[in-house]
């Protein structure tokens, strides 16, 4: 799943969380660098997809009957 480009609001929220003191103009000026850097996330996603383990077709299944009730606190 490729990473969507960040919306300014998303970057503003991150900047606020770390107290970076960035204005809207600052966020705008960081945007190309953030987007350029995040292109590496897509590459990693593609490389990983090419070598990721395949999900087992059948290996166990969810119980069909309700689990046994246990006493509270155990």
């Amino acid at each position: 799943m490729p990473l969507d480009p960040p919306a300014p609001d998303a970057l503003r929220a991150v900047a606020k969380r770390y107290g970076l003191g960035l204005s809207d103009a600052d966020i705008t000026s960081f945007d190309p660098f953030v987007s350029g850097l995040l292109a590496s996330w897509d590459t990693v996603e593609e490389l990983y997809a090419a070598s990721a383990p395949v999900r087992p077709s059948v290996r166990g299944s969810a119980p069909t009957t309700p689990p046994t009730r246990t006493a509270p606190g155990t």
Partner: protein
Amino acid sequence: MTTAVTEVGEGPLAGRTVAIKDNTAVAGVPMMNGSPYLEGYVPLRDATVVTRLLGAGATIAGKAVCEDLCFSGGSHTSRPAPVRNPWDESRSAGGSSSGSAALVAGGVVDVATGGDQGGSVRIPSAYSGTVGHKPTYGLVPYTGAFPIEQTIDHVGPITRTVSDAALVLSVIAGADGLDPRQPLGLVPEDYVGALARGAEGMRVGVVAEGFGHPNSEPEVDDAVRAAVDVLRGAGLVAEEISIPWHAHGARIWDVIATEGAMVQMVEGNGYGMNWEGLYDPEVMAHYGGRWRADGSDFSETVKLVLLAGGYAVDRHHGRHYAMARNLAPRLRAAYDEALDRFDVLVMPTLPMRATVRPAPGAPREEVILRALEMIANTCVTDVTGHPACSVPAGTPGGLPVGMMIIGRHFADATVLRVAHAFEQAVGGFPAPPRTAAATRS
């Protein structure tokens, strides 16, 4: 910052002066790590490498300024002031071990320590014309140095000669029982003794993907190819090899270094949690308290890390970090396959020679570009953990070029043997003009 710490008068480093990168603790000596957030912090205990250097008779002449939280390959982000390149004071000395390389190249100290997460030993060595050896991951304990990301943290020597690099490595290598980065059963080689064995007949793989980056200077690629010819003339056998995964390495590093540094270096106040080993509670409290009070003093590069890493983790909860770490063994295997055929691999350390430092108040775009533009070749071996040494390969236009020599895991001695063979073949490495003149007078 100058000091003079000596503990014993004898040993392999007796009479030699050392500068310690200022991300590494010397008890009682202030440590700033290039950042206003550490100003006023005084470590209580020595880093392991400091203990070992002092035990070998070295005199610690001072702390060498480094880049802000070590997150810059340029020398313009260090606090309190930028570091000037001894070859051309208007240019970058390289980072993040900027002061270390400048002091060694300028002849102020004999040797220095550096740290390397994306190339920070080798970048300033290439820009400033020194020897910089990033050891195999885990060979040298990182204990007492300020971490960035535990899976890519390295400490190594910066020196004027290969024999000095071997000497310092012989002193600082080996397990300390405090650093989980180090493997069990670690036995360092005899790095100094190995140099006498020479390198004739060794096989050198010239990595095609290390040349011709979009920002590569032809002078750099030409100088390194000429250096390979020098190795051939010294009796080594060099052939070109392709490692396609090399081109992916920087992408994998981007994710690890960004999300990983955000979690450990920033949110984890340097040390993070969940690992056994020696922590520095005092620096965690000092640094953590300060940045959390006001994060606006982070450097532009660390702000970029936080914006990109914060956004990615908000959206995907560290999934890409996990994938990148899972890809690291595949990247390493690509190098290992090449190193099955060759004793060492070589490529330009950096695509370019030292660039002009951004002026104070330079635009953010220039500040970030000059900090991160050069790491495409160096950062890959921080992920794979292979040893990598940068040696001066020429000075086209009066500026040093670095050639990077990469070896098998824990075959640091082989890397140094090839570096030494090159140094001997070219008759030693040049000093910056002013240093050379001072030495002659």
